[in-house]
Structure formats: C-alpha cells, structure tokens
C-alpha cells in the first residue's frame, strides 16, 4: 500500500512560493482571525476545547497539553508565565526552525491565544542560541504584531494585556528540559529542578505558575480553535490526534520534513514511498524513530501488539504506524518526530559512540549517575572504535546505562541510557564481534566518532 497524502496544517505555507514571513502576507492568508475570535470567548472554554482535542505535546514527551494547562495554579495570586520552548536540540529534529524562520506569525498567534486562554501575564520565547537569525525574525514579527494590536497592552481593544520577549539560549541541550529551561531564563546554569516541589505549573519561572510548550504544540492550538475540537479529533487516530511533523534524516534518498495525520503513515511508507527508499545499492538496517534518545529499531525484528479487543497482531518495523502509542508499544517513542535512518554501511558500535559523545557533552553534571555514566559510556564506546574492543564491552556499557535511568533528577538520565541499552540489546552481535570487524573495515568507511 502506498503512502497516504500529506496533511499539511502546521507546515501549510512552509516553502510555499511567494509566502513571506511578514504580517501582511500572514494576514492575507487569514492570519490573526482566530486570535480575534478567541478574545471574545471565555478563557476556560478555550482551555476545554484544547483539552477535548486530545492535543499531545510535540516536544518529546507527548504529554496532554490540555492536562498540562489544567495543572496551572490559578489561585496563587501570582502572575502566570508562558514559555515557548524553541530550544529545538534533540538530534534528528528540525521542524521548529522552519516555523520560526518562515512562518513566525503562526507561532505568535498560537502563543497569544494560549496566553489569553490561560490568563498569562508575560510570555517568553526561549530560542536556541545556534539560530542567530531566528530571534531577529521573531522580534521583527512580534513588533509587527504589537503595532497591529495583537500583542502587548490591551490587545484588540480588550482589557487583556500580554507581551512576548525573545530569549536566546547558548548551546546547551539540557535547556530543552522545561525546568532547566526555566533556570536558564532566570540567568543561571540550566540544572533541571527536582519535582516535587518544582512542578512548573505551580512553582516555575520566578517561583510562579508557568506553562512551557513546544513551538509546534502552540501552533496546533491555533488550528484546534480554528476548526473546533470535534473536527480536529477526526485527524489522526484516537489518543493520537492531529498531525505530526516527521523529520527524516540519514540514509534515505529524500530526507526532509513531512506532515501527516498522526498514525496515518507507517514507517515503511514513510521511508520507502515518501523518502524514496534507501540509497543506491544499500538496504535499511536500523532506524531511530523519535530523536536520538529514542530506542533504536532493527529492521527484521517483530513486535507483538495488543489490539483493543484483546487479540494480538505482529508488526514488522515497516508496519509500525507513526503515532505515539504504537511506537511506545514497540518499546520506543515518537518523541520529537526526528527519524534517523541507518543503512547497512553503518556499524552500530560507531553510531552509538557518536550518540554517546553527544550525551556526555550535554549532561548538565548535576546528578552523579548521569554525569559519570554518560562520560563512561562515551569513553568505553570511543575506546572500542579508536583503541581496543573487547567482546564483553557491550555488556559493560549496558551495565553502566542500566544504573543511570530512574536515578536522576530529570529525564536526561533516560535519554542518555536508552540508546546504549537498545543498541546493545538489538545489535549485541556487532558489539561482541567489533574487534574482528575493525580489522576488515574498509579504509574509506565513514568516521562517526
């Protein structure tokens, strides 16, 4: 079965000929009409609509957006903050960059609607430092929106006021973790906070109730209120509603970004039909489905999935629909939508060594299991590639990983140990045989670490 057509909602105007990132163009395409409608509604009705839509966060965890909003402490008397998480830094993920650069007003409108719905006093867009142009584009766009009364004091003649400021990160992956991001915005090292008590919805930015949402998530809010939750629910599958932007990179003929109704496309359709299949003369070997911390899938492995009626079915990697729940049932995750493909030219020890170098570099260093563990995973896997590899190294490195997950303040512990655990579990043969493999490696093979 060939792949279904893309459903472009968020990326509707990305790469569109003649579409520019200024407010005139945005309004010509119906921009800010939803915000105009939203400010005439009751905030709690808007929140109910988002909850009803089943929207799940697009940043990685896939947590219900409506539920997240419902946790916000609205009785504390303190101001409520909203932070747009534009720190896109999970390897393999490259969707928010296009929204920010090509369609910034879509993000601003989604943000302002979400701010109004939650009676937010001040919003910040936390954008990763490596997007130098992004803040300039966003600041220009926010100023245009201020001039048109969509942002700032008494928006659209109402008594509601809320401004947006852009805040640049400076190259630290951990700022994508929401409490680390909050610390960073407060001007500190981005060491994530311990929960409880520091749930952002209660004790977030400046110890005030705070909402942190991903760029894509906030864009979805605009479209949910445009079409209504009932219509939005029809896109995707139950519990996996709306569209999903899938970013494909690595060894396929046509890497890039594609937007599909959640779960409408399978991994096989995505890689073979949409992305043109493997490179000439190669075959697919493995794929990471949701950013580099998601557990790897090996082509050829089979998963037994429970149907709703209790019966079971067997799925190959190619058969997995790209939704949150099925990927979770297959032992991995949809994460941030970053699909990284590896073909038969890749040795999995080399690939893991590359990933481990990333996580060792990015651990904030706060918790011992993560700080030391991520470093040792890097050291061992790099030694395998650059020095001696021993048959027991796979088990050794997995043993280190097993002692990190669940023992750290934030989910980085899981993020850095899942790759090692899954690579060793699924490609144990390559780890055992690496010493021999090395001797026969072609001299022109790609270095990965």
């Amino acid at each position, binding site marked *: 079965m060939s792949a279904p057509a893309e459903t472009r909602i968020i990326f509707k105007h990305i790469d569109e000929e003649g579409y520019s990132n200024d407010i005139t163009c945005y309004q010509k395409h119906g921009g800010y009409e939803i915000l105009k409608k939203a400010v005439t509604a009751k905030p709690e009705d808007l929140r109910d609509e988002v909850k009803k839509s089943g929207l799940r966060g697009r940043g990685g965890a896939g947590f219900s957006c409506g539920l997240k909003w419902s946790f916000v402490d609205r009785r504390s008397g303190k101001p409520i903050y909203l932070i747009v998480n534009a720190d896109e*830094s999970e*390897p393999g993920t490259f969707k928010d960059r296009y929204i920010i650069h090509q369609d910034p007003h879509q993000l601003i409108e989604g943000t302002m609607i979400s701010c109004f719905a939650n009676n937010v006093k001040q919003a910040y867009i936390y954008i990763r430092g*490596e997007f130098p142009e992004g803040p300039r584009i966003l600041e220009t766009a926010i100023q245009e929106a201020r001039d048109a009364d969509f942002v700032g004091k008494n928006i659209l003649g109402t008594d509601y006021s809320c401004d947006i400021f852009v805040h640049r990160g*400076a*190259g630290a992956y951990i700022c994508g973790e929401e409490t680390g991001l909050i610390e960073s915005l407060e001007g500190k090292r981005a060491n994530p906070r311990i929960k409880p008590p520091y749930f952002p919805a209660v004790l977030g930015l400046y110890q005030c109730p705070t909402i942190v949402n991903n760029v894509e998530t906030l864009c979805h809010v605009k479209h949910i209120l445009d079409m209504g939750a009932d219509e939005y629910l029809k896109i995707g599958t139950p519990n996996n509603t709306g569209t999903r932007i899938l970013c494909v*990179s*690595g060894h396929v003929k046509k*890497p890039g970004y594609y937007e599909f109704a959640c779960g409408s496309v399978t991994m096989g359709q995505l890689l073979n039909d949409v992305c043109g299949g493997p490179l000439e003369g190669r075959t697919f070997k493995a794929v990471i489905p949701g950013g580099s911390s998601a557990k790897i899938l090996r082509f050829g492995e089979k998963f037994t999935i429970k149907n709703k009626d209790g019966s079971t079915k067997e799925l190959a990697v190619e058969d997995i629909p790209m939704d949150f729940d099925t990927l979770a049932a297959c032992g991995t995750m949809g994460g941030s939508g970053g699909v990284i493909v590896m073909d038969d030219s890749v040795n999995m020890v080399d*690939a893991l060594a590359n990933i481990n170098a990333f996580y060792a570099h990015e651990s904030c260093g706060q918790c011992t299991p993560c700080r030391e563990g991520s470093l040792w995973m890097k050291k061992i896997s790099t030694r395998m590639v650059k020095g001696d590899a021993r048959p027991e190294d796979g088990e050794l490195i997995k043993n280190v990983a097993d002692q990190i997950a669940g023992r750290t303040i934030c989910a980085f512990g899981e993020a850095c140990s899942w790759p090692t655990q899954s690579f060793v579990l699924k490609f144990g043969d390559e780890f055992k045989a690496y010493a021999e493999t090395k001797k026969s490696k072609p001299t022109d093979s790609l270095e990965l670490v």
Partner: protein
Amino acid sequence: MNLKPETLARIDEVITHYPEKRSGTLPLLHLIQEDVGHISNEVIEWIADKLELEPINVYEVVTFYPMFRREPIGKRHVKVCRTLSCALMGGYKTCAKFESEFNTHLGEVSPDGEVTIEFVECLASCGTGPVVMVDETLHENVDEAKAKAISDQIKAEAAQRG
C-alpha cells in the same frame, strides 16, 4: 572595555524584559560577546556589577554554556556539526577538509588568525547534513567539494580585506 553605544542601549533595553535582573545574564553575555569577541574577566565583572550579582554568578554561566568563549577566536568562526545525522552523511570528512584548508586544528585559531574551526553538537538541520555554520550563515549539504568552495570564499574575503 569599550562597548559600542548601540550595545549599551540594547543592554539597558533588554534588562527591562525581566522582573528580575539576573535573567539578563545570558542576553548581556551574547550582546557583549558579539561586540568585543569573547568574555574576559573584565566582562564578567562588568555584567555582575550591572545586574547586581556576584562575579561567580556570571562566571558559572559562562563556563556552562558552550557558545560563550573565554578566549578570542579567528576572524571567522566555522562550526561543523558533529552529531549523528550529519556524521552519517560525512560530517567528519567535511571537518577534516576545513582543517586542512586552513592548516589548523579543531578549536585553534589558524596561523593567519583568520579562522577558528569547531566541531559542535546538533545544529537542528539534520535533513540537509552535513551542515556548517560560518559565523551566522548556515550552509547545507556540505560535502568535501562544498567545504573547499566555502573555504575559498573565506580566503577570498580575507584577501579583499587585506
């Protein structure tokens, strides 16, 4: 330390974005680094004074975030992405090409003071790897040939500057 008047104006403006001055730490570090090139002890003390902090509060931020540098770099900054998707498309070769073109090693300033080459983690443009940022410009699909072309361009611009 002589900051440009526009830098000073932007510093005063950006501090107003936050209810607590300390939040100005990262924005000030960015603004000053863009102006003077790197973060010296003098800069750290200046920011601490400006934001009513202790110098250690600023210092610990500088040493945490990879983008802030304590030493001057070359006139041009070449950042090659090292992370998986780019590496799968030959990022290490791209990096080696830049090193040989400018006769320098990662993290060092080239002998002519022109270029600093750095291997950085994911630049969030994985679908067009290997990617390279030269100062603030992103270059996509940079294989060895394209790395050579970019290097030639940098050299030509340096020659023009004299």
